[in-house]
C-alpha cells in the first residue's frame, strides 16, 4: 500500500482556509441573482455606522492601541473618505485638536498626547489631516519642526529610525519620505544613502524585507517600492524579480498573502495590489497588451457579466477613434482573440475581479467593517486596508487615477465604487491634490 503523503502545518492551515473560502464561493455561485447582488454589495450604511461609531467613542477595547491613536484616526477617516463621505464639523474639529495635542513641541506626532514623536504615528497624523483637508487641518502641521524631526530620525546608514533610540527599518523610511513628500520638505539630506539602504533590503526572491537579511514581506515591499519611487531611484531595484514575487502572492483564494506560503489576509489587498499597479504603470502605461487572457475570463458572477455586456456610457466616452477593434467586438472580456489589442486600458498584472470577490465575500463583516479572513473579527486596520485595496483593484485597469473605471471593472457595479487613492501615500486622490497645492504654496 502506498504511504500517505504527510501534510505540513502550513498545508493543513492552508487547507482549512481554502475550505472556508471555497465553501463561501460555492454558496455564492449557487445562490440566486438577488442574493448574489446583496452578498457583493459594500453596504455603505453599515460601513459608515461602524466607522462613525468607532470615531465617536474609541471603544474600551482599544486600550492596547493607546500608543497608536493617530493610526485609529487615519484608518477610520481614510475609510470614510474612500466611501466618498466626510465628517461633520464637530468631529472634524475634535480630530484636528486631538492630533494637535499629539504633535510634539520639537516636531512629529506621538501615539497620543505627551507621547514620544514617532514616524509611523506622524505618517498617520499627516495622512489624517490631509484627508480631512482645509486650511485649518493643513496649517495645524508644523512643517519646519517636522523637517527637523525627520532629520533627527535619519541614521548614518541612510535609513530612518522610528523614534529616538528606536528601530531602523523600511517602514520608518517610507513613513518619513511619504510625510516629507506630501509636506514638500523632501531634500537631499533626507534622501542621502536611502536608496542604498532600501536596496540592501530587497531579497533574491524579489520582494523587500523589513531590514537587511529579512525575508520579503508584503507591507515592507509596498513601503520600499513607494519610497524608491518617491526619491526617484526606483530603477535601481530589480523590478523584474519584484513583479514576479508580488504577483505570485495572489493565491487560489484570489486574496493576497503577505509572504511565501503564508495564509491569505484581507489587508494585503492593499499592500500587494498597490505595488502591482505601481509596477504595471511604471512598465507598461502605454502598452498594447494582447487581450483575452485566461484569468480575465474567469467570470465572477452572472450579475457582473451582465454589466460587461452593457453599452455603458463611460465606455463609449473613452473610446478613441482608433479603437475600432474594441468597439466592434464590443462585449466584454471574453470575445477578444489574441489578434485584438486594447490600448485604451491596461490589463492588471493580478486578477482584480477575483481579488474584489475575496474582499467582498470573505473579508467583509455582515455588520460593517472588514477582517483578515472568514472567522476572524473585524477591526479598523483591516477595514482601512481592505477598502483601500478594493479601490486600487477597481481602478487597476485605468491608466491613471483621473480616469474613472468601467462598470465591468467594479465587482457589484458602480454602487460599490470607491474613491481612487494616490498609490504612494494611500490618501484619496482629491484630498491629495488639495494638500499638495497648499503645501507647495506654503514653501
Amino acid at each position, binding site marked *: 500500500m502506498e504511504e500517505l503523503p504527510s501534510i505540513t502545518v502550513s498545508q493543513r492551515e492552508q487547507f482549512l482556509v481554502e475550505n472556508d473560502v471555497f465553501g463561501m464561493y460555492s454558496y455564492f455561485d449557487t445562490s440566486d441573482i438577488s442574493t448574489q447582488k446583496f452578498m457583493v454589495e459594500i453596504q455603505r450604511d453599515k460601513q459608515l455606522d461602524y466607522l462613525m461609531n468607532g470615531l465617536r467613542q474609541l471603544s*474600551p477595547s482599544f486600550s492596547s492601541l*493607546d500608543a497608536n491613536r493617530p493610526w485609529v484616526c487615519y484608518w477610520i477617516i481614510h475609510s470614510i473618505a474612500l466611501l466618498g463621505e466626510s465628517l461633520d464639523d464637530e468631529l472634524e474639529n475634535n480630530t484636528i485638536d486631538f492630533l494637535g495635542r499629539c504633535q510634539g513641541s520639537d516636531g512629529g506626532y506621538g501615539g497620543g498626547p505627551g*507621547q514620544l514623536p514617532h514616524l509611523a504615528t506622524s505618517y498617520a497624523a499627516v495622512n489624517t489631516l490631509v484627508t480631512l483637508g482645509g486650511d485649518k487641518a493643513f496649517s495645524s502641521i508644523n512643517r519646519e519642526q517636522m523637517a527637523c524631526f525627520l532629520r533627527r530620525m535619519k541614521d548614518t546608514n541612510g535609513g530612518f529610525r522610528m523614534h529616538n533610540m528606536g528601530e531602523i527599518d523600511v517602514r520608518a523610511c517610507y513613513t518619513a519620505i511619504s510625510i516629507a513628500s506630501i509636506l514638500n520638505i523632501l531634500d537631499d539630506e533626507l534622501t542621502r544613502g536611502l536608496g542604498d539602504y532600501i536596496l540592501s533590503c530587497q531579497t533574491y526572491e524579489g520582494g523587500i524585507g523589513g531590514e537587511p537579511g529579512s525575508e520579503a514581506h508584503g507591507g515592507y515591499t509596498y513601503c520600499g517600492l513607494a519610497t524608491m*519611487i518617491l526619491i526617484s531611484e526606483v530603477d535601481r531595484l530589480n523590478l523584474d524579480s519584484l513583479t514576479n514575487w508580488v504577483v505570485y502572492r495572489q493565491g487560489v483564494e484570489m486574496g493576497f498573502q503577505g509572504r511565501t506560503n503564508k495564509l491569505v489576509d484581507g489587508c494585503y489587498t492593499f499592500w500587494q495590489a498597490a505595488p502591482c499597479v505601481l509596477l504595471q504603470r511604471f512598465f507598461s502605461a502605454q502598452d498594447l497588451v494582447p487581450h483575452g487572457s485566461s484569468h480575465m475570463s474567469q467570470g465572477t458572477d452572472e450579475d457582473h457579466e451582465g454589466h460587461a455586456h452593457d453599452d455603458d456610457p463611460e465606455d463609449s466616452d473613452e473610446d478613441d477613434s482608433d479603437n475600432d477593434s474594441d468597439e466592434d467586438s464590443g462585449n466584454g472580456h471574453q470575445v477578444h482573440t489574441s489578434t485584438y489589442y486594447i490600448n485604451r486600458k491596461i490589463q492588471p498584472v493580478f486578477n482584480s475581479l477575483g481579488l474584489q470577490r475575496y474582499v467582498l465575500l470573505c473579508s467583509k463583516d455582515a455588520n460593517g467593517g472588514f477582517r483578515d479572513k472568514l472567522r476572524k473579527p473585524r477591526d479598523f*486596520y483591516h477595514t482601512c486596508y481592505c477598502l483601500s485595496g478594493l479601490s486600487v483593484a477597481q481602478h487597476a485597469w485605468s491608466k491613471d487615477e483621473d480616469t474613472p473605471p468601467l462598470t465591468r471593472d467594479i465587482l457589484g457595479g458602480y454602487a460599490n465604487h470607491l474613491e481612487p487613492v494616490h498609490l504612494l501615500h494611500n490618501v484619496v486622490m482629491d484630498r491629495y491634490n488639495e494638500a499638495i497645492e497648499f503645501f507647495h504654496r506654503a514653501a
Partner: protein
Amino acid sequence: MHGRPRKVYKPEEEAASAAKAVKFRSLQSQFLSNHHNKIYTKEAIDLSTKLLEINPEAYTAWNYRKLAVEDTLSRQESDPDLVKSVLDEELKVVESSLKQNVKSYGAWHHRKWVLSKGHSSVGNELRLLNEFQTLDSRNFHAWNYRRFVVELTNRSKHDELKYTEFMIGNNISNYSAWHNRSVLLSSLLERKADGFMPSQKIPEEYELVHNAIFTDEDVQSGWFYHLWLLDQTVNVETPLLISSWPPHGSRINLSRAGCLNDSSSSSKLTTFPLILYFDQAVGGVSSSTVAIDSELKGIEDLVWEPVSNKNSQVSCVWVARLKYMSSEPCFFPKEYKVKVRIGNSPGIVSSRGFNFSVPYEFVFTARVEDTVQEEPREVIVSWTDGFDIWDAQSEDLKNLVNLDQLNGQMDFKWRQEAIAEEIDLFRTLPDSNSKIGKLTIARLLMAKATMSENDVKGVHYEEILKLYNDLMALDSTHYHYYKDEHSVALLRKVTSSTESLSRHLFRYSDMNNSVCLRLNNSSLSRIASVEKLLFVQMLDLSHNELHSTEGLEAMQLLSCLNLSHNRIRSFSALDSLRHLKQLRVLDVSHNHIGEHSVDTTRYLCSSPLSNSEWSQDEVGRRMTPSLVTKYWDAYFVLRDLNLKQLDIAGNVVAGEEFSSFVPQVVPTLVWLNGHKLRS
C-alpha cells in the same frame, strides 16, 4: 500593529473592559508625568512595567526604561551584581510583554538594546526564541531577532543551519526557515568555510530542495529556494571583466573621419573612448587601477568615468576618453601598440564588496592617420538604403568582434555539472505544462548557455525561446516578464557567434562605411548583450517593443540610433542616451511620447523645477520658461545631446510648439523631422 490577535468583546465583558480602560488611562497619565519629569525611582519604573504588561506597544515607555536604566547604571556601574539585576529585570519585562503581544516592535527592539550591553547568554535567548518560534514558526520578528543573537554571540552558523533543517523538516513550506538557510549559507559559502566549498555544498542543497519541490509542486517555498541556488551556481562573487573596447588583438584607426567627429569642433583634438565592461557594478576604476603602456600621446592622466544613470560611483561600464593630437600632419600612418592592464593594483571593488582579483590585460593597435578631410556635408541619414552586407569571414569583422568571454579562469566545471543535472531532472517533471517547471528549465538552459563553449549555444537558445513563447501563452499574468526574458535570450542568440551576428551587420556607405547593426522587427522589449556590441556605430532598433533605452549607454561609439515605431512613452525613457557623446542622429518617430498628460513620470519626479539641478541651469533660464516647464522631461534629456538630426514625428508631443522648442534646446540641430532647419 497588524496581525495581533484581537479579542471580540461580548456585551457582558464590556463593563469590565471599560473599568480596565479607566485604570489604564490613569496609569498612562501617571507614567507620562514621570517620563516628562525624569523620575526614575523604583516606584516609577514599576509603574512603567505595569503599563507595558498591559500595552507592549507603548514605545514611549520602552524609551523611558532605556533612560531609566542608563540613569541607574551611571550611578552604580561599579557594582556588577546591581548591573546584572537591573538588566535581568529588563529582560523579564520584555519577555512578559512578548507573551502579551509577540509582534511588538518596541519589545523586540528593547531586548536587542539590552543584549547589545553585553548581557544575557545565547542559551537563554535561544530558549526564549524556541518558545516563540514553536508557537509561530513564521514570526519575522523572532527570525530577525534570531539572526541578531547569532551575529552578536558568534553562535556557530553550522548549528543554525541544523536548526533550519529541523524547522524545514517540521514544515516543508516554512519559507522563513528556507530564507534563513539562504542567509546562513551565503555567509558560509562566501567565507568558503570548512565543508562549505560552493562546488561541494551547492549540489547537496539541490538534493535537499528537490524533496520539497517534488513533494508538492504547489509549495512555492522550494521553488524560490531553488531560484536562489541557481543564482549561487551562476553568479561568481569576484567581479570579472567581460568585454572591452577596443577588443584584445584588434587594430583600430584613429582618424578624424573614422570617429564621425563633430564637424563644428575647430580644434584638432580628437577623443576616442576606451570602454571596460564588467559583469557586475564596480567602483574604483581609475588611472591607478588601470595601467596603460603605449607611446601614443595623450594617454597620460586618463579620467575614468562610470557610465550610469545615477549619480553613483559604481557601474558595470567605465569609459575613459583618450585624447590624441592629430595636429602634426603625417602622411604616413603611424602605428602604436597600446597595452591596458587592469587589476594589478587593488582598488576595483564590486558594489557587494568583492575585489577584482584576477589581473587581466589586453593589447590593441592604434593606427593614427591624418585622412584627407572632405568638408563635412550636412547630409541626412536615411535608414532605408546605403547598407552593404558584411561577410562573416571578413577580416575587418573578425577584427572588431570579439565574442569570447574574458573569464577563462573560472571554476566552471562543477557549475556546469550541477546545471546539467538539474536540466535532466526537471525535464522529467510529470506535468509538462507546469509554468514554474518551464520557467525553471528556461532559466537553467540560459545558465548552461552562459557557461558553455560557443559551438553548442545555438541549440539551447531555440529551446529557451520556445519555452518563453509557451509561457507567454500559458500565463498572461507574467506576460511582460516572459517577454523581456525572451528578448534577452534572442539577443544572446544573435550575439552568440560571428555568423549569427553578421546576418544583422552592415556597412553604411554614406558615412565612411560605419558599422551598422540592424535588429529591427525583432519584437524586442528589452536590450541585452550590449557588452558584445560595443563596436557598433549605427543601430537600427526600429519596429520593436522597447520602452526605454536602458543598456545602450555602454555603446560609446554610437552615432546614429533608430528607435522609430517602439513604445517609448516619455523623454525620460531616453535618459541613458545622455551618456552617448558621439550620438548625432536620433529617430524616435512613431512612439508614444506625450500621449498621456499624466503618466508615471509624475511619480518619478513630481516637481522637476524644484530639482536642485535646475537652479544652477543657466541655459534653461534663458529659454521661454513656459515651454521649459511644459516640456521639462524633454529638456533634461535633449540639452545633453549634440544632435544634428532628430525625428520625433508620429508622437503626440510633436506639435508645432514643441518643434519650435527643440532647436532652442539643441542648437546643433540641422535636420528636424526630415526638414532642414538652417542652411
